[in-house]
């Protein structure tokens, strides 16, 4: 059976709302409009306006309200129409959500999920294409997840909603319509993926490629091409950016001796930099070659199609180091 990522997210929301009356969804256009990207389709009808709340376009205000509701013990899911707009509310994510449990020595826990599409889409320009994975994942107190497949989307979103800590959940607009095969287990309402564990999407022995979100698909495609060249690539789908699964990454690199990191975000202080450093720290002696870091170009996202293509990794970019 196949479902697409949108259906996976929608069903995860639906099941968790049905399982726990404390879970509610808020954000711009999540209700009557059924979600700007239709992720919340049908939920208003099913759960009513008390639990599916359309907000004004005031991110600081509604995010703060979400966090306050979590202080009280509810389990809010705050949708950002895209994560670009989370910058208007970032103080609440960092200072009000991430740090409260610590500052209060465990009195004020914050069981909340911040979710929405993150990073580059298609043709939306510089202000609508920022990837926030590295920023949020730098902050202790937050957990940061980024699904690739429908399985990831379902399992990780359900895990995020059930988790007692604040979770930043980074989706990708261009994956919403993509379909993936799913097992019965994945479709079961009890399905859940542990936070903090990466998934080896494909085993290999010559090189390790780490990726998250849309780039996992590119990495898998690259691995296919490499296979034809006789190179066996291991592809790691990070799933969780914080905590980062250093163990899985390092044991893969210890096996392959080579590492390529892939992401769409900016290079400096990015996810690739952290992974490279983690491997240098834990497996320095095993590295047979410099780590190759593939990232978005170090420029704001241009609009023109040809420039935009150059600004984010293509499958070819992942192969370049072998040519």
């Amino acid at each position, binding site marked *: 059976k196949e479902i697409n990522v949108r259906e996976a997210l929608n069903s995860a929301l639906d099941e968790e709302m049905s399982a726990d009356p404390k879970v509610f969804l808020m954000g*711009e*256009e999540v209700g*009557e*409009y059924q979600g*700007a990207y239709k992720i919340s389709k049908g939920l208003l009808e099913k759960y009513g306006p008390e639990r599916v709340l*359309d907000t*004004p*376009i*005031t991110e*600081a*205000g509604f995010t703060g309200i979400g966090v306050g509701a979590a202080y009280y013990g509810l389990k809010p899911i705050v949708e950002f129409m895209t994560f*670009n*707009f989370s910058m*208007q509310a970032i103080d609440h994510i960092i200072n009000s959500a991430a740090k409260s449990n610590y500052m209060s020595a465990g009195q004020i826990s914050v069981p909340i999920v911040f979710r929405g599409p993150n990073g580059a*889409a*298609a*043709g*939306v*320009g*510089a*202000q*609508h294409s920022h990837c926030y994975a590295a920023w949020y994942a730098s902050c202790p107190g937050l957990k940061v997840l980024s699904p690739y497949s429908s399985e990831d989307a379902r399992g990780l979103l359900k895990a995020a909603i059930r988790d007692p800590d604040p979770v930043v959940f980074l989706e990708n607009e261009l994956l919403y319509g993509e379909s993936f095969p799913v097992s019965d287990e994945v479709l079961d309402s009890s399905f859940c993926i542990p936070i903090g564990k990466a998934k080896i999407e494909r085993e290999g022995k010559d090189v390790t490629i780490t990726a998250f979100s849309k780039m996992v698909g590119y990495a898998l495609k690259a691995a296919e091409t490499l296979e034809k060249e006789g190179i066996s690539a291991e592809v790691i789908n990070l799933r969780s950016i914080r905590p980062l699964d250093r163990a899985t990454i390092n044991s893969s690199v210890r096996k392959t001796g080579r590492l390529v990191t892939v992401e769409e975000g900016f*290079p400096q202080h990015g996810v690739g930099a952290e992974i490279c450093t983690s491997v240098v720290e834990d497996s320095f002696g095993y590295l047979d070659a410099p780590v*190759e*870091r*593939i*990232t*978005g*170009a*170090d*420029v*704001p996202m*241009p*609009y*023109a*199609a*040809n*420039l935009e293509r*150059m*600004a*984010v*990794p*293509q499958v070819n*970019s*992942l192969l*370049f*180091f072998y040519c």
Partner: protein
Amino acid sequence: DSKPLTIETSMPYGSHNCEAPSRSVETTSEELFSFFQDMAKMRRMEIAADSLYKAKLIRGFCHLYDGQEAVAVGMEAAITKKDSIITAYRDHCTFIGRGGSLFELFSELMGRHTGCSKGKGGSMHFYRKEAGFYGGHGIVGAQIPLGCGLAFAQKYSKDENVAFTLYGDGAANQGQLFEALNIAALWDLPAILVCENNHYGMGTAEWRSAKSHSYYKRGDYAPGLKVDGMDALAVKQACKFAKEHALKNGPIILEMDTYRYHGHSMSDPGSTYRTRDEISGVRQERDPVERIRKLLLAHDIATEKELKDIEKEVRKEVDQAIAQAKESPMPEPSELFTNVYVKGLGTEAFGADRKEVRVKLP
């Protein structure tokens, strides 16, 4: 042979903390004619953009302004290009109002090097600094403090000009409006906040997003006017009034009662959260182009035929601009790395894999 005319606005102004301007607007036959021309051009342009989008020649977001043209045109009639304007993503007609060309506009929409942002900005990021147009901003509400900053700079520089900041009814709830307005009022900045109330922010009707939808009363202490935003003359009068006020007394709010015919952006059919009757009602009764057409006819300034001819001509202009833009090249690959900085300090910049593209930033 332009002849002076005085025309009554069909709706009274609403006013807050100030005396409303007169409903009798002075104009000329020439001005009315130019209003028609400009609005017909804008209307045609947006319809063409719609088609180009559907033909996949425009990508990403594309927010059309048809229905709201009277605001752009009436505002320009009251001010000069030394006054500043800043707006949101729904910026095509503002760009044209500031004297931008259809060719630059369509080039930008199609991501060509000849675009007003050399293809790097896209639909939401038009600018024309030489004519006082500061964009084209994609983040709801962000342009409001930016616009007050333009007003600050004008006052600081002792230029006797004002800054118009346009934003939607949805944006009017943003906290940064209140923050910026407070500062503008404390510092007496010549800032004119223009709320283009088209009654919906995406799919959300104003009454669902704002407890108070008297947008011209926001911030209580600042004066405000409610203006028929479908009437270019009413808009002109209000903007003239506001400019005078702002230079003397600081910020003022203009709420333009207007309407967008299209959906929010191209993915929104625009008909799930409002009725087709509502849309066609506005088209029939309040359309800004038709209002001017009627005035031109009623005052014998032009014949039906002349106006039809203008529309034909405008259509040709638009088609030509599109054809020319289509033939224009995409940006050079090296443009990926230009304009990141004004002064690039000689550091290297890389493409996705640190090997493919590698240039020194100028």
